C-alpha cells in the first residue's frame, strides 16, 4: 500500500509540489495574519480587565466552532478559492493566539512590573523589556496550538477550492483510491507533527533561562 502511494507520488511530482506549496502558503499566511491581529490586540486589551474578559469570552465561543463549519460559512459569502480559505483559516487561528496573549500578559509577575515602573522605566520600555519577554513563552504556546490547527484546517480548505494536500485526500476518498489518499494524508500528518515539534523546540529556546523549569 505504501509502495503504491510512493509510486503515485513519483508519478505526479508537479501536482504534489503545488499542493504542498499551497498548503504551506495557506497555513503560514493564516498564522502570520492571525498573529499580526491577535497579539497587538491582546496586548492592548490586557490591562483593561472588563474588555479583556469580553475578548476572552468571545474567543472561547469562537474556539468551539467546528473548523469545517467556519470554512463552509465563508463560502456563500466569499466564494471558493485561496483567498476565502485564507480568510476562514485566519479566523480559526485568532482565538488561540489572543487567549494565550492575554494569559501570557496576565502571568507576568506584577511585582516585576511594579519594580520596573518604580525604577523609572517608561510604559513602552516596561512592555518591551519586561512584559513581552516574560509573556513570550505562553504567547508562543498559543502560536504553536494555532499552527497545528491551521494546518489541519487547511486540509479542509480543499472542500472550498482552497487547494492544498486535502485535494489528494478528498479525491482519494471519492474514488476509493488508497494510494492517492495516502499521498495527501501522510505528508500532511508529517507536516503537522513536524511543525509541532519545531515550535516546541523554538518555545524552549525562547523561554528566558530564569523562567525555565526543566
Amino acid at each position, binding site marked *: 500500500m505504501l509502495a503504491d502511494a510512493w509510486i503515485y507520488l513519483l508519478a505526479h511530482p508537479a501536482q504534489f509540489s503545488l499542493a504542498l506549496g499551497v498548503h504551506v502558503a495557506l497555513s503560514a499566511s493564516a498564522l502570520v495574519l492571525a498573529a499580526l491581529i491577535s497579539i497587538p490586540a491582546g496586548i492592548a486589551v490586557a490591562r483593561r480587565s472588563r474588555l479583556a474578559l469580553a475578548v476572552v469570552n468571545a474567543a472561547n465561543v469562537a474556539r*468551539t466552532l*467546528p473548523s*469545517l*463549519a467556519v470554512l463552509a460559512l465563508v463560502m*456563500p459569502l466569499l466564494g471558493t478559492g485561496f483567498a476565502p480559505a485564507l480568510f476562514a483559516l485566519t479566523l480559526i487561528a485568532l482565538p488561540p493566539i489572543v487567549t494565550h496573549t492575554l494569559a501570557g500578559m496576565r502571568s507576568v509577575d506584577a511585582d516585576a512590573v511594579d519594580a520596573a515602573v518604580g525604577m523609572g522605566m517608561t510604559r513602552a520600555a516596561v512592555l518591551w523589556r519586561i512584559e513581552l519577554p516574560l509573556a513570550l513563552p505562553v504567547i508562543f504556546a498559543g502560536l504553536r496550538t494555532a499552527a497545528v490547527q491551521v494546518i*489541519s484546517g487547511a486540509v479542509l480548505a480543499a*472542500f472550498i477550492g482552497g487547494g492544498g494536500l486535502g485535494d489528494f485526500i478528498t479525491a482519494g476518498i471519492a474514488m476509493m483510491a488508497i494510494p492517492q*489518499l495516502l499521498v495527501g*494524508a501522510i505528508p500532511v500528518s508529517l507536516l503537522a507533527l513536524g511543525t*509541532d515539534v519545531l515550535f516546541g523546540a523554538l518555545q524552549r529556546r525562547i523561554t528566558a533561562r530564569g523562567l525555565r523549569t526543566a
Partner: protein
Amino acid sequence: MKWLLRNWTDVAYALWEHITISVTALTIAFALSLLIGIAAARRPRLYGTVMTLSGFLYTIPTLAFLAFLIPLVGLGRSNAIITMVAFSLMILIRSVATGIREVPADVIDAARGMGMNAKQILWRIELPLALPLIVAGLRVSAVTVISVTVVAAYVNAGGLGTLIFNGIASDHPAKIWTGALTACTLAISVDLLLAGLERRLQGRRIA
C-alpha cells in the same frame, strides 16, 4: 430560512445522528481515559509515555486521520468514532491524571490514616475532588468531537456535515448555512452547558 422550514425533519435527523455519534465516541473515550488516567496519575513515566502517544494522535489533521482508517475499517460510523476517541484521549487522560494528582497530600494522608483502602480513597476522595478538572477536559473533548463529526460526514458517518457537503456539491447555500450554523449552535450550547457544570463543581475543591 424557507428551506429549513420545509426540510426540518432532514435537519433534525442529521442533528440526531450527530449527537448520537458524538455521545458514543465521548463515552468510549471517557471510559478509556479514566482507566488510563487513574493508572498514569501515580506513575510519572507511564504518564509521560501516554501523553506523548496521545499528543501524537491529536496532532494528526482530522481528515488525514479519517483517511488513514479507510484501508482498515472502511467508511462509516466506526471510522468516525475511532478517530474521535483517538483525538479525545490526550485531553481526557491529562484531566483525569492531573485532577487526581492535585488532591492535597494531607487529605490523602488523613484518609489513609483513618483506614480507607486504595479503592475507597480513589472513589470517595480522589475522583470526587478531581471532578471539576475532569469535566473541564470533557468540555474540550466534547467540542472536539462535535467538530470531527462534521468532517466525518465525508466518510459516510452521517451527521450535520452531510448537509454542508450536499450544499457545496449542489451549490445550495441554504443547506450549507443550515448545516454549518446548526453545528456551531450545537458546539456552543454543549460548551456552555459543561462550563456551567464545571463552575458549579469548582466550589467543592477548595478546603
